[in-house]
């Protein structure tokens, strides 16, 4: 469904040159959930921005549904690939009601039948019709993120890119949103690409996971490996240890990679 081959991103020129993504390759089949994990600055969000089209200065190949995408996206691309952003407080227009936010993509793609679509997608993400004419400031963080998911779903895409979808949320809300995402994926047979620094989230959500460090893929592992801890690379093991909480003895042994 999605194939990324030798993706390279370089920011800046000369001394300020920053090779943010180096030869990253992976594939995700239809219905798959693929995870990208790594520390801050490892380039995982940059990969996502290249796929979504927010970044244009990349080299390599990105294929969606068997056909390569170009730097300038065609309108049909947006109906196939949608994205959910990290910060639910910044991703909704503050002066638009939920109704307006959800109707906008329908108007752009001239799909018609707006009221029924909005109503259905709101139910699907677990927000009733009573939320429909509220402004974002009248919603909680979790509710806003549900609206963001609804906005991604309304164009009926096949791939959804999730950029740390729960890291800005309360722990109690995180599980709710993750379960919602899982249900929707099963129901619609969607392909997910999930970026996260949280290994627990990734192991809950993803079948296969690419571990990234300094712009490179360290290794690609599956969920079973992550849960059993049978990891090849030392960096991945260190990341796993770090994710288990603060441990003085473990931290003293950490290395820079």
């Amino acid at each position, binding site marked *: 469904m999605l194939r990324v081959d030798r993706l390279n991103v370089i920011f800046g020129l000369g001394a300020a040159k920053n090779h943010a993504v180096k030869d990253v390759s992976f594939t995700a089949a239809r219905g798959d959930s693929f995870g990208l994990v790594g520390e801050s600055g490892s380039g995982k969000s940059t990969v996502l921005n290249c796929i979504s089209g927010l970044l244009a200065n990349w080299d390599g190949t990105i294929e969606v549904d068997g056909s390569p995408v170009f730097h300038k996206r065609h309108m049909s691309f947006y109906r196939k690939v949608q994205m959910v952003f990290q910060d639910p407080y910044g991703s909704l*227009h503050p002066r638009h009601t939920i109704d307006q936010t959800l109707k906008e993509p329908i108007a*752009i793609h001239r799909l018609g039948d707006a009221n029924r679509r909005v109503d259905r997608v709101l139910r699907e993400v677990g927000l009733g019709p009573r*939320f429909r004419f509220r402004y974002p400031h009248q919603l909680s963080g979790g509710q806003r993120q549900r609206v963001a998911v609804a906005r991604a779903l309304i164009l009926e895409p096949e791939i959804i890119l999730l950029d740390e979808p729960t890291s800005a949320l309360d722990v109690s809300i995180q599980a709710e949103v993750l379960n919602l995402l899982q249900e929707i994926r099963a129901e619609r047979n969607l392909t997910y690409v999930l970026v996260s620094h949280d290994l627990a989230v990734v192991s809950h959500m993803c079948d296969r996971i690419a571990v990234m460090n300094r712009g490179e893929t360290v290794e690609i592992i599956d969920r079973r490996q992550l849960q059993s801890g049978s990891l090849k690379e030392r960096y991945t093991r260190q990341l796993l240890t770090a994710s288990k909480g603060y441990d003085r003895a473990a931290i003293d042994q950490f290395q820079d990679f």
Partner: protein
Amino acid sequence: MTRKQKIQGARAWLLTDTPDSAFQAAAGRFYLGLLEFFHNRLAVVGLLIILALITTAIFAPQIAPFDPVATDLANRLQPLSAHHWFGTDEMGRDIFSRIVWGSRLTLYVIILVAVIAAPVGILVGTVSGYFGGSIDTVLMRITDIFLAFPKLILALAFVAALGPGIENAIIAISITSWPPYARIARAETLTIRNSDFIRAIRLQGAGPLRIITKHIMPLCLSSLIVRVTLDMAGIILTAAGLGFLGLGAQPPSPEWGAMTSAGRSFILDQWWLITMPGTAIFVVSLAFNLLGDGLREVLDPKSDS
């Protein structure tokens, strides 16, 4: 249902957390803004003065007791009296009637300037801020050129080139007052354009036209409305200044600036000639400033909680 119950019902309808329609949501938001605005007493005073100005302008023929341009040399330079409330000027014209009719000219100037300058400013600013790069450079350098001249001097130059008259004064003031709006709109756009909600709409396939007009402009609009309202006082003063210099409205039209100019030579012996139109300019300018301050508290996104 009693009156009180009806009012309470309307309040509940406006303040509900679960509006049933887009109209109800918008009405509720407007009502909250209105409540906040009415907390500011001075702003309400400003609003009342401006409403009075508008009413005066509309009903000028009914309010003014005399013809504002009819000269009566036998009656020139009469002091304040029950017959001539604000006295008469050097041509024997009733000053009160002239001020009442002059309110039309004042409103005409500020409305036209706002209608011309604000859209130009917001368009230049948002386009320049959204696209950036060379478009931004070109548009902002043009803006800088206009900003580099003092407003009144540039307006004077334009009027001198176009010829005196109220229409040309309006064009000149409009040409000189859009650049600050462009600057404000650009600054707002720069903070908005990289926010996630703009990225989200871009990822849904929206083109620049839709993003600028439907997503960026509404967010720039509130600070722009505030700025335009605060600028109204400046516009009135510039129009009056042009009138004072003889480049705005031409005699015998009752423009307030031209009236102060005519009264200048009588300032020591017949003080009312210059004081009355001067006071009118002062009161209306002050009212716009007060209103602008009140609007800022309600509309400015930075003061939102």
